[in-house]
């Protein structure tokens, strides 16, 4: 399978704080990797590096064989990004938002593609409504439609299940699974493992900016994740106690 993402020793520093340290990652076409970790583990930092929103402080990163710091436009043209925020304009309708992004991504059949994507995420009947009238879940679905508008080869998803109800989560999981079948590579940070483990290929666990585990999704034990979170909480409590005494 074609390698889409190749990261070696990937690190990112903010001032003196290392948010991500020495992470290796290989992602092939049609492969989905779930990114796990407690708050502050470095998930969003890793995703922002892949999304070309930040540059690595150390290490190397190639996307489709290209260096994102040198061939940013080519890398971005093949990438779809879902962030914490929806990246949508409230004053525009759902359709107008997609037309705007279609122009930025150079999608030729913008009207037809927007209609199709809105239909796929269940917003076909709300295409002419302004985003300000949408619920959080509807905005999240529209955000996904925006990210999928140009059939990206790489999907970078930061908590894509945020704000979705149970049927919405199931629909999204089905949609993402279909994208994987289409051949898209995917890295997604999520706490909603129930919706991901069935079709994801691997699970990558970060802790305090470092990769601590990478294993096949089928062998991933959720109880291990719970134990890991407990361990992190205990570690934080210990640090807080030490600071309190100091």
């Amino acid at each position, binding site marked *: 399978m074609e390698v889409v993402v190749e990261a070696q020793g990937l690190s990112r520093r903010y001032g003196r704080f290392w948010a991500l340290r020495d992470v290796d990652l290989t992602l092939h076409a049609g492969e989905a990797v779930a990114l796990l970790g407690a708050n502050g583990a470095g998930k969003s930092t890793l995703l922002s590096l892949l999304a070309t929103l930040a540059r690595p402080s150390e290490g190397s990163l190639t996307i489709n064989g290209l260096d994102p710091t040198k061939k940013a436009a080519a890398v971005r043209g093949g990438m779809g*990004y879902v962030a914490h925020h929806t990246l949508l304009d409230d004053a525009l309708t759902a359709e107008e938002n997609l*037309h705007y992004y279609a122009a930025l991504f150079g999608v030729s059949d913008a009207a037809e593609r927007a209609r199709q994507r809105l239909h796929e995420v269940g917003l076909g009947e709300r295409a002419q409504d302004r985003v300000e009238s949408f619920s959080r879940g509807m905005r999240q679905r529209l955000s996904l439609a925006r990210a999928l508008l140009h059939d990206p080869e790489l999907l970078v998803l930061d908590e894509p299940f945020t704000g979705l109800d149970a049927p919405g989560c199931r629909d999204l999981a089905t949609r993402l699974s279909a994208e994987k079948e289409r051949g898209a590579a995917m890295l997604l940070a999520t706490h909603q493992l129930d919706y991901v483990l069935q079709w994801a290929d691997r699970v990558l666990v970060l802790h305090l900016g470092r990769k601590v585990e990478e294993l096949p999704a089928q062998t991933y034990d959720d109880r291990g994740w719970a134990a890991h979170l407990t361990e992190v909480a205990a570690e934080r409590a210990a640090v807080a106690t030490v600071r309190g005494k100091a």
Partner: protein
Amino acid sequence: MRSFWGVVAAVLARDVRAEWRRKDIFTTIVMFGLLTVVVFVFAFDPARHAREDVVPGTLWTAFFFAGILGLNRSAGRDGQDDQISGVVTSPADRGALYVGKILSNLVFMAVGELVVLVFAIFFFDLDERHLTGMFFLLLALGTLGFLAVGTVFAVIGQKTRLREVMLPVLLLPVLTPLLLGAVEGTAIIFTPGPDEGLGDWVQLAAVFDLIFLTAGFLLFGSVLEE
């Protein structure tokens, strides 16, 4: 294929459409511009001061300060729901994004300036014969130069904690030559008699525009992504 002018048109259409529905940038520019004119009318009684001494400074102060508030609004809107990241993660030509933002800000400022100008004519009892083609050329060059710098600095300002304060602090020192040219040129236009020396001030504004439009076009991408 991403076309340069397709991106420009998309940015312009999106900004104008959103402003048509919200009207917050236009309202900000007009309200602040009008208040500035009224304050200057009270501070410098038109009956006791020559208009050519008061009106040029009043107009350009109103335009630039109202424009700063408008730019802050415009950039703030781009920051809502982190839309700026949506733009940064797109492959769109950064120069096209810059041109699109300048054009949309130009539309908002031009409409606001015309409204403020109408009120200034009324409050200062201005002779409409002074509003010549050269006056509107100077107005266009002054506004374009203001936006050439302001559109870039508004993005920088949005990335700092001080935001609203940062834009005027960064912008006004850089705009000094343009402000000088615009005020002096307008004073010549409003002074009865031949427009001697006006060409020099118009040239100054044109050169300022050329330099800063080029710099903004080349640097906007870096500013957006840093």
